[in-house]
């Protein structure tokens, strides 16, 4: 099938992301990649749990999960990121209905929300560092920044990726070549969101308790 063929909403297939062999490969390959990412984050979570609140013998109560974290800010971040997952669902909904403008718009909104999340995270980290909770402060600080920071790096990568998708395809509309790309980008975004839900629960909620 010619991937550059023009479609209308009527001729557009039900599963455009899997209508070509290349699309199908991308689809399966990306799910497998996410499986590998899950193990990656699982390793980081395990390390974090082992090192939570651990530090040099001189470390006081000041920098423990109970006294450090500020849940209202983190809750706001969670809401922003969850919403961005929803907006990416809208984008894919429009993609499946061959409504390119809707796809682009909602993807754009997703990027904006992601950027807000990232800004809040940078603010949060900056705040901790100013309190003296540096990366090298303790085993706990290293584990915390590495786990949450890896997630943040994923968000940043997702932002760059989706932004370049939006720019690259802006002039040409949807076809069977870029439909799988939008689809897996959205999938990646959901994954980032799910990881954050775990971070919110395991690091922040369980930490503040």
């Amino acid at each position: 099938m010619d991937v550059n063929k023009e479609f209308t909403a009527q001729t557009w297939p039900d599963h455009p992301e899997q209508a070509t062999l290349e699309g199908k490969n991308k689809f399966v390959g990306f799910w497998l990649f996410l499986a590998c990412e899950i193990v990656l984050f699982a390793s980081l979570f395990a390390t974090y749990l082992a090192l939570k609140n651990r530090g040099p013998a001189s470390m006081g109560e000041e920098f423990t999960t109970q006294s450090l974290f500020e849940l209202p800010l983190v809750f706001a971040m969670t809401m922003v990121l969850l919403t961005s997952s929803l907006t990416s669902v809208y984008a894919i909904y429009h993609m499946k209905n061959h409504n390119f403008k809707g796809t682009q718009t909602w993807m754009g909104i997703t990027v904006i929300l992601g950027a807000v999340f990232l800004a809040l995270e940078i603010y949060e980290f900056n705040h901790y560092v100013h309190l003296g909770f540096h990366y090298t402060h303790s085993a706990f600080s290293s584990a915390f920044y590495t786990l949450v920071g890896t997630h943040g790096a994923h968000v940043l990568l997702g932002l760059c990726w989706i932004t370049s998708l939006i720019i690259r395809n802006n002039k040409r509309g949807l076809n069977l070549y870029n439909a799988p790309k939008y689809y897996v980008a959205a999938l990646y975004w959901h994954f980032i969101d799910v990881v954050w839900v775990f971070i919110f629960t395991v690091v922040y909620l369980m930490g503040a308790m």
Partner: protein
Amino acid sequence: MSSIAKKTGFGATVWDYITTVDHKKIGVMYLLAGTFFFVLGGIEALLMRIQLMRPNNDFVSAGFFNELMTMHGTTMIFLAAMPLLFGFMNAVVPLQIGARDVAFPFLNSLGFWLFFFGGVFLNLSWFLGGAPDAGWTSYASLSLYSEGHGIDFYVLGLQISGAGTLISGINFLVTIINMRAPGMTYMRMPLFTWTTFVASALILFAFPPLTIGLALMLFDRMFGANFFDHTMGGNTIIWEHLFWIFGHPEVYILVLPAFGLFSEIFATFSRKRLFGYSSMVFATILIGFLGFMVWAHHMFTVGLGATANAIFAVATMAIAVPTGMKVFNWLLTMWGGSIKVTVPMLYALGFIPSFVAGGVTGVMQAAAPLDYQLHDSYFIVAHFHYVIVGGIVLALFGSAHYYWPLMFNQMLDERLGKVTFWFFFVGFHCTFFVQHFLGLMGMPRRVATYGAEQGLDTFNLISTIGAALMAIGVLMLVINVVKTAIKNEKVGRDPWGDGRTLEWAIPQPVPFYNFRQTPLVRGLDTYWIEKQEGNEEGMTYAEPLGDIHMPNNSILPFIMTIGLFIASFGALYNMDADKPWSIFLLIGGLSILFACMFARSFKDDHGYHVHVEDILAEEERLYGKKGGNN
């Protein structure tokens, strides 16, 4: 664009290989690079054996010995065994399932270059201030305090080549899931395809913990993080867990494809269907699954507690069950078969007793109380060489003979091959059998020398003599390859005469698009079925002759890898305060990498079509007027 108009000349050939996305050529490159590293690791081993030949020897210094044994292990596992297996997977699996290429040809090329430059990076440490010296396991309690940049070379080098492995693993999974020819159901897949499939799944789940472990190690050394530093609240055991959660599945990543290769060889040369095919598949999956449940048997002496040790001991012993199933299936494949003892079959026959011996010592070590005696002694060294050399290396050598005609359309010399086998096989047992006793007599592993009064001299001398025999064997194999290349005698399709699976049904040399028409698979051992029915074509086709869609070549994977390679040097030297220029290397290298990724996503790559008249012209060029199927 058509790739049929071929340029010739050395430069053009090099360019062709650097840019290729053809799985057959990538397979050849894996084979070449893997052999290079295998020889390198072998030389390191020989140096160690010379040092241990007699007591109180000072052939190498203790520090250099540590570097040798670290680099030997790391090279052999990551840079020799895995890539050589990947070579066969690339060369064979797409043909076995009736595919024209892998699912992601671009990533396939990227995976190869990442592995290769990761390996080169690691080995450059020899010339740039010293190799890593904390063992291939690089336990944090040693490696954090290792002087110089050796450990950084280890961490960054394995990170790069590990990324390549992960990419290849995903690629093979998707290839096998999506690209099978019509009729090739899962339960008709040849066993090498099955074991590649399961091994790739293991890669998918086992490599991320290694990636994380290496990253944490890097952060500890580079940014002053405290993951493994107990004075700062860190915990050195975390590294051991992460490493072995990767490390044990890794040994099955290696041995499962070896099982697959031997399964092909046994069936072919017993001229019989593989006995218990479905139980073989089941055992493969079960081993893959259990492989993740046993990592702590490497940590019995760490002090995890009796309960943990007991659980991991039982889980470890359980793996012997599916492994035993496989051994019996191979034996019963031969039972009543009409056996032809070719060189590949000879290796297969040698494999069974050798590997079983390694499995038995494995079960012994799995008994946690006994392992307190055996751990970190030469007994362990004997065990893992019995499974790795007796399993994997024998499989690699046997398959080199078996698949040589498929990859190069030439047959390695059978007589020389048999002599090679005996040198290698006898040398192998001579080297490692006595090491069991050295271990029981109390010789610790990873020591640079031992005392004259310890009574260890004789066995160590025998072991060194065995190593020399193995080296002669390897040398003879290389001579065989050169001799065969010079003789350059073409053999054509199905040179063993007993090929059973699809890869043997393709005319030789294999055209770049593999199958002119996609085949229809009519059962397990589909080529055998066609031959039994007297089908001269060797295949039933699932489609009429038509245009073939093929992927474009690309130089980007190579440039991306170079970028990462440069950036790694930047990162490494950035740890030294007196090398401010390193930051430019880091930024420059990463810019190259990202520029390539950008170019890749902004420039569409749709591949191209080979038209019917081009296919016919190519077939005439390859096979002359009569066509390739006779």
